[in-house]
């Protein structure tokens, strides 16, 4: 009964946080605690509904093939019966969106809760919760969208919230710049996505997901294969930006300027996976175009490796996590590219838990250390902050891929599907990335939580509002992967594109995965924990001097973009502006000056003397008379018209 209601009114889920946003902005803002309660309460309620809706979906196998869709007209142009353009808004519930709906609302609830403690004392406390609520609403809307334009709206709104929250500490110039960078980078990507959507609308005449899925199967009736490829590539540009894929990943590490709950919620668990989600939703499109799939896979695989190499050398705790997020997003893309929606979504699901957990843990550490972010200046925190440290270790085990923690199962899924689809190079890259991941994560854990304590620090364990979410999420990080074990893959039955494939369990891949993870952890252990002075680590950095510097400076991509922006974009702008002032306006002013100068010239004739004027006047009279005499007309009109004739 209640489940039925939740399924039929799934739109309530995004609406609740949206209402919270409005209530906080217009009513509750002066009272900090009230604002927080409104935000958390609404999100918890939304989570409750989302859970019910998810239960409804996951108890009926029909929805896997036939999503539950209800939509209404948003606007239409042209004749009512036969519109030239009609855009619907609605809700599409199927296992994928139900899973996302549950995941987003669940994690958001706990991160909201965490924020109550984390943001304590901030002057913008209420505003922060209003932004968070707005974000929650937009993200849930994105998840539920039944129409690509509706999804795009939500997509941009989450981008806006991301912008606002990255730049939340408005007085910091770095935050301001990071926010701007995030928005503009995503905007560049959205440009591609928008073009893709426009093409879809123009070619297929609809943006409704289900209708599109039906039409693209027979795309030959509408368009050529080349066009479809182009569309797929254009659509994919959007996710490249939003999900921080190479080469538009640059904004994501900078986004860590925002408060940590934001990093956990938006830049780890939910918003950044929107790109993955979008590709997953439009799988029917990519499925038709193998070359686009290839592009997705290569982009994902490369990004995973690329970001992992950068993460090795970084020093700030949140930056390491950010690059690891980029890397993990690359995994998800890779999985999509090799055709496994199931594996991708599975990794998305597990990643949300352990990465949110790790970010919150990092936030807890940062609060304790008064925002000293360099992992080399930490050390031995496990003694003073046991809950934070051990939950963080669980997260580390999960992301490194140690069974039975969540990350192992999903990463294994991805490796297996890469292998099964015959992408051996990508498989190798992914496997190597797994090793690197284990290494840099544990490097961070060993440096920060173990080893000798730094006497300059006086850490304290965080309050319950912060530790409870950590505990809950760590449970998730432990257990979330058990849904999709290769022996009994419940996940793959529900969340899939096309047929569920039951292959033999690939023990070889599993073993390789474990070995690589173990090797990574062991290497980190030897370099950073066993060797208390970290001599070997320093020596390694010296040996690989240029490489180390290049990695530490993120391959100088930011510098390149900055140069491009300043020299090229701003330079061109300046050029255009000068052109405008001097050429376009010059012509305008030139015409004005011409008029003035000719006026000055003619001014000589305006003596101001009556008798001069009379003289000229009679000259005119004479002229007219002479004209009359010669044309033979006797009237002025005759004179003029006769002349024309």
């Amino acid at each position: 009964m209640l489940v039925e209601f939740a399924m039929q009114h799934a739109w309530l889920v995004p609406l609740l946080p949206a209402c919270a946003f409005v209530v906080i902005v217009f009513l509750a803002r002066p009272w900090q605690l009230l604002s927080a309660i409104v935000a958390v309460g609404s999100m918890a309620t939304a989570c409750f509904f989302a859970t019910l809706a998810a239960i409804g979906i996951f108890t009926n196998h029909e929805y896997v093939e036939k999503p539950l869709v209800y939509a209404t007209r948003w606007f239409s142009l042209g004749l009512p019966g036969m519109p030239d353009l009609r855009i619907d808004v609605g809700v599409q519930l199927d296992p994928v969106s139900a899973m996302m709906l549950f995941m987003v609302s669940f994690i958001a609830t706990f991160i909201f809760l965490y924020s109550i403690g984390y943001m304590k004392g901030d002057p913008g406390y209420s505003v922060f919760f209003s932004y968070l609520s707005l974000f929650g609403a937009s993200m849930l809307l994105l998840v539920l969208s039944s129409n690509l334009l509706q999804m795009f709206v939500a997509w941009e709104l989450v981008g806006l919230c991301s912008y606002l929250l990255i730049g939340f500490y408005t007085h910091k110039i770095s935050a301001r710049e990071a926010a701007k960078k995030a928005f503009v980078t995503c905007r560049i990507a959205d440009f591609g996505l928008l073009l893709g959507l426009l093409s879809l609308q123009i070619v297929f005449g609809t943006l409704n997901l289900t209708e599109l899925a039906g039409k693209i199967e027979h795309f030959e009736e509408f368009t050529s294969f080349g066009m479809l490829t182009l569309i797929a590539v254009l659509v994919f540009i959007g996710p490249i930006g939003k999900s921080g894929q190479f080469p538009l990943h640059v904004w994501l590490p900078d986004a860590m300027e925002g408060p940590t709950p934001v990093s956990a919620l938006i830049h780890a668990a939910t918003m950044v996976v929107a790109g993955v989600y979008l590709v997953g939703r439009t799988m029917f499109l990519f499925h038709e175009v193998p070359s686009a799939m290839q592009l997705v896979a290569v982009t994902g695989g490369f990004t995973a490796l690329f970001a992992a190499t950068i993460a090795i050398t970084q020093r700030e705790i949140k930056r390491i996590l950010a690059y690891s997020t980029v890397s993990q997003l690359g995994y998800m893309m890779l999985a999509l590219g090799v055709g496994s929606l199931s594996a991708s979504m599975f990794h998305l699901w597990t990643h949300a838990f352990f990465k949110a957990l790790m970010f919150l843990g990092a936030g807890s550490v940062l609060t304790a250390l008064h925002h000293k972010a360099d992992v080399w200046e930490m050390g031995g925190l496990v003694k003073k902050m046991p809950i934070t440290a051990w939950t963080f270790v669980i997260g580390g085990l999960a992301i490194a891929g140690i069974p039975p923690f969540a990350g192992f199962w999903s990463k294994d899924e991805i490796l297996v599907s890469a292998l099964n689809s015959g992408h051996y190079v990508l498989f190798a890259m992914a496997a190597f990335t797994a090793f690197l991941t284990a290494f840099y994560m544990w490097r961070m854990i060993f440096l920060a939580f173990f080893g000798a304590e730094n006497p300059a620090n006086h850490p304290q364990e965080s309050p319950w509002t912060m530790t409870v979410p950590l505990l809950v999420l760590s449970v998730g990080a432990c257990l979330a992967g058990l849904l999709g074990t290769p022996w009994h893959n419940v996940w793959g039955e529900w969340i899939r594109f096309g047929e569920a494939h039951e292959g033999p369990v690939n023990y070889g891949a599993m073993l390789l995965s474990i070995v690589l993870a173990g090797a990574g952890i062991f290497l980190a252990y030897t370099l950073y924990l066993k060797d208390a002075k970290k001599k070997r680590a320093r020596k390694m950095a010296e040996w690989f001097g240029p490489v180390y510097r290049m990695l530490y400076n993120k391959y100088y991509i930011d510098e390149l973009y900055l140069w491009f922006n300043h020299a090229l974009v701003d330079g061109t702008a300046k050029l255009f502006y000068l052109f405008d002032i001097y050429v376009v306006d010059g012509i305008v002013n030139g015409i004005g000056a011409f008029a003035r100068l000719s006026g000055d010239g003619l001014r000589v004739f305006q003596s101001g003397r009556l008798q001069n004027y009379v003289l000229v006047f009679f000259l005119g009279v004479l002229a007219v008379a002479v004209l009359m005499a010669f044309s033979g007309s006797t009237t002025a009109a005759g004179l003029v018209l006769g002349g024309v004739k």
Partner: protein
Amino acid sequence: MDFPILLAILLAPVAAALILAFVPREEHMLIRCIAAVGTFVSLALSLFAYFTYNQEIGGLQFVFGNNMPWIKDLGVTFFLAADGISLPMLLLTNLIGFSAVFASWNVNNRPREFFILLMLLITGVMGTFIAHDLFIFLLFYEVVVIPIYIMVVIWGSSKRVTKEYAGMKLTIYLLIGSAFLLVGVIALFVKTTAITGTPDMSFTGLAAAAQQLSPFDQTWLFALMLLGFGSLISMWPFHSWSPDGYAGAPTAVSMIHAGVLKKIGGYGLVKIALYMLPLGAKFWAPYMAVFGVIGVAYAAMGALAQKDLKYVVGYSSVSHMGYVILAVACMDVIGLNGAVANMFAHGVMAALFFSMIGFIYEKTHTRWIPDMGGLARQTPRLAVGFMLAAMASLGLPGLVSFIPEFTIFISAFNNYGGLAVVGIAGIIITALYVLRAGANTLFGPPRPEYDHLQDIKGPELVPLVVLGTVLVVGGFLPSLLFDMINSGVMPLHAAINDALQLGGNF
């Protein structure tokens, strides 16, 4: 006869101006209140008209004076009527007019004269949108020019250019534009009268007669109108009045000018030039599209190089109007809808932008972006308004300007392909300059010299509330706007289509 609602809307500000003329000049508060009441009556009535317009029937409604000859020999009647295209524009005018009164709340230099001129300005703009007679249209248009000049020269501000220069440039450009227009209109009138034998200046009459003109005649007539309306809507390369003019003008004039006056150009292009001369439009459409796209990209780049807030918005409005021109050039249902809707959206956004900049200038006495920073801490409400306008400017979904831009993109991409892509790429540059201006003004370390600033409050909030509400409501319920515009565009498009099919048989 029904209550002549359009006439009432038109006359409410005039009445306010008349009353103002008899108010003692020292009674500042009374003066402001009278102006506010005058514009509010107009606003309320036009809202009423907007929501009582019957979209099922469509066509011209609230007709007034179609049988009231004014100049018999020229076939001029004082014909007021509204359809789905003029009503949004009328509503826009009143929204902005009402807000402009409150944005000028702190004008203390001769407020009586200021508000009288403002009322006249609003009346003139409204008149152009509800006139259904070409002569009356031109007449109202000329009414607009005079107050603008006076207001810029007396209440304006001199920055890069002096206010006298700005006022002169603005006025002369508008007049030159209307001169081309006038030639076009007279030629059209003479030609059509020669065909039909009975002089008729009403839109419908002219349009019907103009269909019998030869394609050649239509082509050069359209060229004249394009020049005229093009310089009004600041089509590249006739745009350079726009940034300078806005920079020199007082807040209210900038709001009305960028918000609605510019739209007279677009409105005229759609409802006069396109409607009457479809064959000419067909010929010029590709050129218009090119000009539109150049305008979008060029002005966006220009905005990127600016350091004065008003110049940023000035260039950005040129850029946005490029989209409108591009959309008109598409000549299909989606494009025309998008063009009109984008004019509405841009009007609301630009007015909000200018009112916020006006407040910033009033409080900090600067518009120079490097001199600012961190205002979000000191004046949060102002920052909200500014960001709302900025986000609408870069076409954020959920605000009123996204859907119009989307429809324009669809239509332009469909009709012009690669050219449209260049135009659509403008959204990136727009994001860049808008965010840069917003970030450098509002965020960053707060400056101690602005610590004493008071946030906007009381009447100063009205522009933010009124225009902000429209921005958000229009963004989430686009059908409120689009159903109305669609009911106006459909018959127009049908007429154009018929003419083009006939024209094919020439």
